[in-house]
């Protein structure tokens, strides 16, 4: 569609692994002719269609909405989660960002808390377990008060939404040398700490989610800022600072255990 559309050819070095128990290895595939207007996943579709026709099993990868919002997709491209373009999910990374003749290394998110399932697919259910620990306001259906009796300054609502834009893709964990989920947890804790609705459970939430994070095998934050750089929604690490504050306050001054 763009005026600069071109056809390029690439070499893909893709991680293949039958399942969590088997050994994996990189395998090389020629991409065939690729339009620079394609998204990265459309390029993988083309490669998979060719593999299928040759009777080979296509490369398994997670993906769904292809609009950058569901958080299903995500692999490591040339060493970077979601590829080198800032603020982009893999499905929104377009081939115009690569050059003819490039070799692209494609491997799964690697982290202790994300066991591999097959090829590029990993198990990120630990992130759901973290949310279950307190990433919500405990309000039953039907018990809500009239919406406009809760006033929220516009700036606060904006800040809360900045944090709540997290799509739960796990790139922050994959990018972190310690495999920490601090950015993910801090985004949820921040959203609810900023809003009046989240205040009653504020201390409990921070303590419970941080503890669970340790329990699930996520590492700790070493201020490397790799998470922020990899985040497709550009969630700021100021959220981690807020989480630390919330956690200390809760540990020292609250009655929550």
């Amino acid at each position, binding site marked *: 569609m763009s005026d600069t559309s071109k056809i390029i050819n690439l070499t893909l070095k893709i991680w293949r692994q039958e399942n969590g128990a088997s050994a994996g290895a990189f395998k090389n595939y020629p991409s065939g002719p690729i339009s620079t207007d394609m998204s990265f996943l459309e390029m993988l579709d083309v490669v998979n269609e060719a593999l299928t026709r040759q009777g080979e099993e*296509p490369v398994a990868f997670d993906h769904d909405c292809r609009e950058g919002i569901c958080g299903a997709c995500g692999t490591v491209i040339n060493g970077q989660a979601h590829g080198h373009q800032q603020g982009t999910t893999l499905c929104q990374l377009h081939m115009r960002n690569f050059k003819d003749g490039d070799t692209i290394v494609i491997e799964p998110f690697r982290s202790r808390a994300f066991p591999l399932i097959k090829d590029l697919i990993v198990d990120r259910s630990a992130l759901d377990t973290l949310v279950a620990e307190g990433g*919500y306001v405990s309000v039953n259906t039907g018990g809500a008060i009239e919406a406009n009796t809760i006033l929220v300054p516009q700036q606060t609502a904006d800040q809360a939404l900045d944090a709540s834009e997290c799509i739960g893709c796990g790139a922050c964990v994959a990018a972190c040398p310690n495999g920490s989920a601090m950015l993910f947890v801090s985004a949820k804790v921040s959203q609810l700490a900023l809003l009046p609705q989240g205040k009653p459970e504020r201390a409990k939430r921070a303590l419970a989610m941080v503890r669970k994070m340790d329990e699930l095998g996520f590492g700790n934050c070493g201020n490397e800022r790799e998470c922020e750089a990899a985040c497709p929604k550009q969630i700021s690490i100021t959220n981690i600072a807020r989480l630390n504050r919330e956690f200390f306050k809760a540990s020292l001054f609250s009655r929550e255990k």
Partner: protein
Amino acid sequence: MLLDAKIPTGPLVEKWDKHRFDLKLVNPANKRKFDIIVVGSGLAGASASASLAEMGYNVKTFCIQDSPRRAHSIAAQGGINAAKNYQNDGDSIFRLFYDTIKGGDFRAREANVYRLAQVSNNIIDQCVAQGVPFAREYGGGLANRSFGGAQVSRTFYARGQTGQQLLLGAYGALMRQVKLGKVTMLPRQEMLDLVVEDGVARGIVTRNLITGAIECHGAHAVVLATGGYGNAYFLSTNAMASNVTAAFRAYKRGAAMANPCFVQIHPTCIPVHGDYQSKLTLMSESLRNDGRVWVPIKPGDKRAPADIPEAERDYYLEKKYPSFGNLVPRDVASRNAKEQCDAGKGVGETGLAVYLDFADAIKRDSLATVQKKYGNLFHMYEKITDQNPTERPMMIYPAVHYTMGGLWVDYNLMSTIPGLFVLGEANFSDHGANRLGASALMQGLADGYFVIPATIGGYLAGMANRNIDPKGQTFLATRKEAEGRISRLLAGSGKGAGKRTVDDFHRQLGLLLWEHCGMARNEKGLQEALKTIPAIREEFWHSAIVPGTGESLNQSLERAGRVADFLEFAQVMVVDALQRKESCGCHLREESQTPENEALRDDSNYSHVAAWEYTGTDTLPTLHKEPLSFENVQPSQRSYK
């Protein structure tokens, strides 16, 4: 098959209250004795799971994604309607009801739509209480914007990602119940069939998408919230995994399928640009608040948009529909875009696009203001097309987006199979022949938070709390059938003469439907589609290549199963479209037009819900009609002029 809509008697405004009072209740202590299966974890499925679990039922929730938070509700951009009248612009529950039923071209039930408008306000309260960060005014109150098909501002939003924020609210509520042990969450599981015993829904058969294990799950009621079937068209704005399988399996087990030909074609999508494309991307309809739609007056004008002077531009929506302008309902906007392109006035490389121009809005309100409203949409557009919409008008074209048709349900949201409830986009109930913008989120959450918690009790209270044995005869037989289908898909793999991939077949079906069962339809085209579909299906079962095995994660096999069902389901869509010889809502039947080429509805012959009963793969389904009666609104020819 008997279609009893169970609409409560009495005045419209009192029906829901009266019905809730008349329904039998399940005593709080007895609720824990009932198991409920919910399939799907989008707005409808997640909100239903959480609400039912809060009430005390034991809920098992299934989804095909790796996490319930990824359901496609997450991609809804624009907003959610409610009749709060915060803008003091004359809105009311009755106006929201009226706009919705008129927007649906008078093909929905009055009672259902009125209930939807009634609970719309509770939804906003609920979501705000959960901490959904809706847009706010400077004073801290909730902000609204306007949307197509309405002349009041009643849409609540969170930038261009309202669906995401609402779903995260419902997902939070769901995960809270997981933690409390009231919901068992089963992700990466696909429902392959419904188990019906003695005419009643008793459970489901699923495939574990990681291990390939086929499993049986029993319950006292089954709730389907599995979304729409837009992917029948191959290219649509739906997520890649969105499919009709669960709903279609229920149809084959006896649930009536209602109005399957009612498919919404969304006017503002990024145009198709290559044959490798696997899905289309929607640009929120809210853009039409500030964007002006135009094409060059002269057909075939290939000049860059900036080089076309004002006098040579045709702002056709503003000209034709002065009172609604660019905010006409989706069907009208889509049809007019097609009409302009058919007349050779389409723009871009393919000529299948029209401009959506923000230059005037930027001049009027400043670039910063426009960016604040639509920044993330502009960003998304630029990533995909490599063009900046604040410098050069966006190019848009209609694409399949939402399906108003779905499994038939009564006022309780129960299908024609007792014990099988259907919520959200998967049912047919509230949008008639066309859905207004910002109404899908409203309906999904209305069904899940407020309707099903009330109505499911009425069903469960009436049944003895019997033990359901997922190792019983019927379960085993249903499971065996599901296993058989999987072996057939793998066995047929590429044996036929012209081996083709599953996507290849899917694309072929999609093109056929888009051509003959899309925005404009006629008898001849539909007949041709009806003849072609069985041939594609036949070839599919012989020549589709399905590599790998059934005993492990196999995405080719998953896709093949879904496409196999689309290939059968498409036939029901076409049969329904053939039967409905009127133009209505989202589609134009070419034989039924006014002298000005506007859609002509035929109330004397088609004021009914068409519910189809399965009779076999190779035979046509049987039609049952549920007549629609209008006591509170007068069906009129829609006019947005």
